[in-house]
Structures are given as C-alpha cells and as structure tokens.
C-alpha cells in the first residue's frame, strides 16, 4: 500500500469556545486572544487608528481576515494613474471585503493617511478606488496597510473591469425604469376607461390619445433589448422567446394605435407596457445574480494574475506582465512563486507540478530540463531562461485545447428555448387562424378580425413563460451563492441537474493538495523545535511541519543547505540522508536530529479532504456514478480511491487522456460532471457536460468551469446538485403552468372576448403565480 494509504484522518482539533479577536477563527488551546501574530498586529493597528468599532459590526466568515505572514509583494506603483494636478488614482480589487464594516474599516484606515484624498470601496464589486497626492510608490504602502489588516489586494485588471462594468445591465435597468413608468401611467388612464362606461366619446378619445402618447415611445424605447435579440435570432433562423415577445408587443402597440385613430372602444397600451415591465424585471434580476458570480470569479483571477520579474542586462529586475516577455528573456522566480512561462534553469530546482501534471509530490528538475509553466517553485529563488513567449507556451497550448473542447461541446439548448421552439410557431399559427376565422368565415370587418388576432398574440405573449425560468434561476443561483457556490454560466444549473456521472480529479480536489503530517506519536517538544527550524523554509514539507505546530518560535541562526535541509547549530532538519539515516525511506519524509540524539522521522501524506468520503457517498445517493481520474501514479490514486470509497479509478492520465475519457463517457450517452482544479484538468472540464472546480483551483480551471466552489471541501457539490434538480423541477412546473394558462386563455381570445381588463388581470396573475412558485427554488 502506498504512503497515502496510511494517512488517517487527523483527530479534530480541540474545540475551544474562544475566537480570535481579529479574524474570529477558533483559537487553539493555549492561545489567549489571537490566533497568530498577524492578527495581533492587525488588531493593534485597528485600535491605533481608533477604528475598534469595526469588531462590533463585522459579519465576516471566521478566519477570513487573517493577515498572511508572507503576502506576495507586487509593485503597485505602475498601476496608479496620474491625473492632472499630480493626483494619483488607483483601482484595486480587495479580497475579504465581505461586509459593510469591512468597507468602513478600509475606507477609514486609508482616509487616516495624511496624503489620501479619497478612498471609496464598493461592496458588490469588491473594488477600491484610492486617490492621493504624492508619489505613485505610495500605492505599495496602502496595499501593505490593507494586507496588515487582513485584506489582500490586486490591481483591477481589464478582465475585472469588464466584469464589473456592466453596460448591458445598466441598459436593461434603464429600460425597466422606463417600462415601469409607462405601465403605471398608462394604467392610470386605462382604469378610467374601464370603469368609465358613461364617459363621453370625446373624453374617451382624448384618454386613448394620452395612452398612445405615453405608450408608443415607451414600447419603442423599453422594448429595444427584446427587438435586438429577436432580430439576431431571426437572422440566425431560430425562433426565440424574444421574437414572440417582440411581435406580440409591437403588434399590440400598432393595433392600439390604429384603434386610437379610429376611436375604437379599447386600446391595449397598458397590456403591452406591463408585459415589457414584467419581462424586463425578470431579465434584470437574472443578470444581477450572474453578474455577482462573474465578479467573484474575476476577483479570484485578479488575485492570481501576476507579473514576472524580468532581469535587465544591468542586473536590475523590472516587473512586467507575462505576455510581454519574449523567448530568451531571463526572469527571476521567487520562492513559492508560480511559473508563468516555460523555461529552463541553470541549476537544479524543486517544483510542485501538481497543477500541470497532477503529481502530488514536488520533484527536482535537473539543470536544462524544461520547466512547465503553472508549476510552483518550492525551493530557493532561481533565474530561468524563458523558452517560449506566453502565447506559444504550454499554458497557451492548454488554453487552445480548452477552446477546442468547448467548441466540440456544441450548443446546449436551454429548456426555455426548447419550449420556445415549439411554442412560437404554434402561437403565430393560432393568431393567423383567428384572423382567417373572423374575416373569412364569420365575415367580420377586417379591422375586427385583426383586433382579435392581435389579442391572441397579446394573451399568449409568453409573459409567464419568459419569467418561468429566469425567476427560478435567480432564486436558485442566489441560494447557491449563499452556500459558497458560484454559477458562472446561464445553463449550468440545467446541465448540473441532468448530470448522471461524476468524474473527480485527485490532487487538490479529493485531497487537499498539500502534505499533512501523519501523527505517529512524536514527542510534542521535538515536533515544536523541528517546526521552529522549519519556519525558515518554504519547502512544502517544512510548511506542513509548521502547520502541525503553528505556535513554534522561530529558531535562531538557521541556514539552508541547498537541496538537503536546514541547519541551526547542532540541529538538522531535512532529507533522511542529511540527518544520517539510511536513504530508502519513501518520498514524503523529513528527518530531524538534535546533536547526537537519534534522528526522528516525520512522515507526510497528501491528506484526503475531511468531507470527501461523505461527498462521494452523497453523490452516489443522488444516483451519480463516481470515478477518479488522475495524472498521478497508480499507488497514490488507488489509495485515495479506496479511502474516498470510489471503486472506479484511472491513474496516469495526461490532459488529453482526461479529455478523451470525458468524450468516451459522452459517447456512451452519459452526462459527465467533471470536478477538477488543475491546469491539466481544464480541457476535460470544458469538454464535460457540466464542470466544477474547488476552492483554490488554478485560473484556467476556474475559467473552464460552470461552477466554482468558494469554500474548502466538496460538501457544497451534492447540495448544489440537489438545488439544481429542485430548481429544474420548479422550472418545469412553471412552464407547465404557463402552458395550461394559455390553453385556457386562447379560446377566450379567439372568441374575441378579451378586453384590456381581462388581458391585464390574466397577465399579472399568471406572472405572480410563476414568481411565487420560483421562490421555493433556493431550498434543498
């Protein structure tokens, strides 16, 4: 059995009721007020600024505001835009900005700086705008201040700006405002006509003109989003719901205009404007829910997006975006940094390639061996010669693979569109038949026949049908958002509900993707002294040792023996050979020796996520087949599969093999749900019927995924499937209801009995029922 197989779940940490005074995380036994030195510093800083009121108001998740000991230092000065009169302006995305109190703290802390002119944070967009008078380099001080408070910042990239600058959303909201204004004011006139049976003909004519005066511009302006989309659908040769809406609204408006001119008994401007207002309300809500998800993803990407340090001939480094580096340039890779480009190094380097290959262990790369972009430097800083520019490198190749997979996926036809395809032609045929019936058979005047035909269009205008699915989407996506699941694609819920097979990646998805110490009865004091030494290294095993004893004080006089370990006086921590043990011990081990005492071995394993077996069992309960698909070696994969309770596993799969496996499943008629976090999973994620990536996934995997889990663990996945299925059921009920309502209402319209009052009551009541039904969708 492999090493991973021996990992036992760690005993749960002793629960202490006390919480850290800054970040609110649970305190380990022995800690008085703070969970770490960073929080203590942050608390002192907040108190020093006179902003202690923050702690009474914040509503953040426990642990969310823990300042990171080693925040990556990114030079923000180039991102500050200098205005006229020497005012600098900087746009930042702020992670951890999750409640009103955080906004207050960030704004006030920055405003306390003497040279800051203004600081304004947006809670929805997690966006901070700072302006100040002075040098651009002050940007780094502000970022440092926020980092000490526990907020991570990144420059607002063009992608982020696109996500939060929502011009289309604003246009929809504007249209909604205009339509609502029109609907209410036309209704004011219409009610007078409905109840004023004894009204003089001239007055009624005047009121009709008034309704037309308000109604016509409103229909023309507020309906633009529908007309545009309908025109696009028409040119593509596909009847869409928007086409039915546009035809219904325009025909109703024109018919009402002609009735106004001829002084007919009724006009239908109220119905047309109300229809637009209701439909636009659905659209605006739908868009708001998905905008939030898009923004959160863009925020995650911005925090990962980095610059590379290019070495100049004179030995200085400059920070440039990865796209601007050409093959042959030399870049500096800091300890713990992710490689943005392919390259070769002159010395041996230790890289964690879990994201690119799925291997769970970091491994050394010999001098001259190609280093894959996406791997993380686990050793000391090194200089790398870039072998391919970003657009020709392995990351770009992976992105192309992803693109092809997405194209091959074909167009998924959403349920609303499927309904529209059958609904729209039927409705228009019924309207045409109505006209023929009245004009040809009953020999009515053609105006009467036309009025009745348009009434059919109005009454069947898919108001409830068009609200049926978006209303459910808004509620379900909102419910998932509260559970930490971001839905990034419009049809993701529908596809998730129909998934019948789950394919899980191993490293980083089922496992935590980082080594954890296996408790084997080591002496606590020894462990802590070893952890004190480990503080000096960024090696993943050293970091894992430190996590096992986080309160260890830093050891004095530690120096690193490259490639072997750490030394401080007579104490040594490193590879077993370095401490005088026979080589041959398996991969993830550290040895610790103090003077002449017998060396102590620490063994590590990539730890299965605590909730992984439960999540797998829940997926099986939901009727999904579960399989494990990993790029790692057989032993490790088999062990994790056994622990998680997955009978079916495949090891050693490269990105293409993963994508092929997904395609093979689809060819069998399965609808696979792919869950993965690595760059090597991206193509498979894109090819799958529906895909999800866990917290901490690489940017490429997140872009390829339909769902992004924000919280650690997989527990949210089964509940997301339950919500999606329930939402799907409710959407079907809604569509069924709108169809039933139409079947009942159409004969009334064909018979010519629809007055504007009937149309308004029927339209509003059916929409209300559909919306109320949709409110149930957020429950599991």
């Amino acid at each position, binding site marked *: 059995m492999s090493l991973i197989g021996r990992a036992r779940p760690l005993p749960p940490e002793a629960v202490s009721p006390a919480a850290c005074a800054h970040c609110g995380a649970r305190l380990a036994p022995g800690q008085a007020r703070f969970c770490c030195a960073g929080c203590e510093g942050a608390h002192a800083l907040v108190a020093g600024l006179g902003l202690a009121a923050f702690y009474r108001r914040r509503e953040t998740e426990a642990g969310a505001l823990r300042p990171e000991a080693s925040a990556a230092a990114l030079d923000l000065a180039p991102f500050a835009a200098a205005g006229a009169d020497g005012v600098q302006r900087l746009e930042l995305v702020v992670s951890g900005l999750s409640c*009103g109190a955080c906004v207050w703290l960030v*704004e006030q802390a920055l*405003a306390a700086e003497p040279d800051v*002119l203004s600081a*304004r944070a*947006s*809670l929805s967009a997690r966006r901070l705008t700072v302006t100040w008078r002075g040098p651009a380099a002050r940007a780094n001080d502000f970022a440092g201040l926020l980092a000490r408070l526990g907020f991570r910042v990144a420059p607002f990239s063009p992608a982020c700006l696109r996500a939060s600058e929502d011009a289309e959303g604003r246009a929809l*909201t504007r249209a909604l*405002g205009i339509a609502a204004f029109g609907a209410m004011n036309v209704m004011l006139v219409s009610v007078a006509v409905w109840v004023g049976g004894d009204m*003089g003909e001239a007055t009624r004519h005047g009121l009709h003109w008034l309704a037309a005066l308000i109604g016509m511009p409103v229909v023309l302006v507020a309906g633009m989003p529908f007309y545009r989309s309908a025109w696009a659908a028409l040119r593509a040769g596909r009847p869409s719901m928007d086409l039915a809406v546009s035809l219904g609204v325009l025909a109703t408006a024109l018919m009402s205009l002609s009735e106004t001119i001829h002084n007919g008994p009724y006009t239908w401007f109220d119905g047309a404007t109300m229809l637009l207002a209701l439909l636009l309300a659905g659209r605006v809500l739908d868009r708001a829910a998905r905008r939030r998800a898009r923004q959160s993803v863009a925020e995650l990407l911005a925090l990962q997006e980095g610059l590379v340090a290019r070495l100049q001939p004179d030995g200085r480094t400059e920070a440039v975006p990865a796209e601007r580096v050409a093959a042959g340039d030399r870049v500096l890779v800091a300890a713990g940094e992710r490689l943005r480009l392919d390259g070769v190094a002159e010395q041996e380097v230790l890289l964690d390639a879990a994201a690119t290959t799925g291997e769970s262990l970091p491994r050394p790369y010999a001098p001259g061996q190609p280093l894959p972009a996406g791997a993380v430097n686990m050793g000391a800083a090194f200089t790398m010669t870039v072998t391919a520019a970003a657009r020709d490198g392995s990351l770009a190749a992976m992105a192309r693979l992803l693109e092809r997979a997405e194209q091959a996926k074909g167009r998924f036809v959403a349920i609303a569109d499927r309904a529209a395809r059958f609904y729209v032609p039927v409705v228009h045929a019924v309207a045409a038949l109505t006209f023929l019936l009245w004009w040809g058979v009953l020999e009515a005047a053609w105006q009467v026949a036309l009025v009745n035909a348009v009434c059919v269009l109005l009454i069947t205008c898919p108001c409830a049908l068009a609200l049926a699915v978006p209303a459910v989407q808004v509620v379900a996506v909102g419910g998932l958002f509260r559970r930490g699941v971001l839905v990034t694609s419009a049809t993701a819920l529908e596809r998730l509900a129909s998934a019948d097979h789950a394919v899980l990646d191993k490293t980083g998805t089922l496992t935590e993707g980082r080594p954890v110490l296996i408790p084997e009865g080591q002496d606590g004091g020894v462990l802590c002294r070893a952890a004190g030494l480990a503080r000096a290294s960024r090696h993943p095993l050293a970091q894992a040792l430190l996590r096992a004893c986080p309160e260890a004080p830093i050891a004095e006089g530690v120096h690193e023996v490259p490639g072997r370990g750490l030394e401080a006086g007579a104490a040594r921590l490193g590879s077993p050979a370095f401490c005088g043990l026979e080589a041959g011990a398996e991969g993830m081990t550290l040895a610790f020796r103090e003077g002449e005492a017998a060396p102590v071995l620490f063994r590590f394993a990539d730890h299965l996520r605590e909730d992984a077996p439960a999540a797998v069992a829940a997926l099986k309960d939901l009727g999904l087949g579960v399989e494990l698909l990993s790029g790692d070696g057989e032993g490790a994969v088999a062990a994790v599969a056994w622990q998680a309770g997955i009978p079916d596993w495949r090891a050693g799969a490269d990105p293409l093999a993963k994508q092929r496996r997904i395609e093979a499943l689809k060819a069998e008629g399965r609808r696979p749900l792919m869950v993965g976090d690595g760059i090597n999973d991206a193509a498979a994620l894109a090819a799958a019927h529906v895909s999800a990536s866990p917290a901490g996934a690489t940017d490429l995997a997140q872009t390829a995924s339909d769902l992004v889990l924000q919280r650690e663990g997989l527990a949210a996945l089964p509940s997301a499937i339950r919500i999606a299925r329930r939402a799907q059921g409710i959407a079907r009920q809604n569509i069924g209801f709108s169809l039933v309502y139409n079947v009942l209402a159409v004969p009334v319209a064909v018979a010519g009995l629809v007055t504007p009052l009937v149309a308004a009551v029927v339209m509003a009541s059916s929409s209300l029922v559909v919306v109320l039904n949709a409110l149930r969708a957020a429950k599991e």
Partner: protein
Amino acid sequence: MDSLLLLIPISLFLGFLGLMGFLWALRTRQYEDLDGAAARILFDDQPGKETPQ
C-alpha cells in the same frame, strides 16, 4: 371633466420627474453598489474623506 385638463398633466409631470430622477441615479452609478449603500447608512461616524465620484 374640466379638472382632468389640469390633473392629468400634473400627475404625468410628477411621474416624469420620478423617471428623470431614476435615470439620473442610474447615470451617476448609484445602482452599482447596492450592498455597500445598504451598509453605509449605518456608519454613524463622520466619514473622513469620501469621493463624490
């Protein structure tokens, strides 16, 4: 019925004012950060400095 000649224009004018107010609020980006605006009203301290965008 003569009163209609006065009352309807007045009511339409008031509604139109409301619509203009809404469009102005939209144009000045007051709908960009609804969550933040909901929380901001509870900050009782004098804000040090703030941008009017």
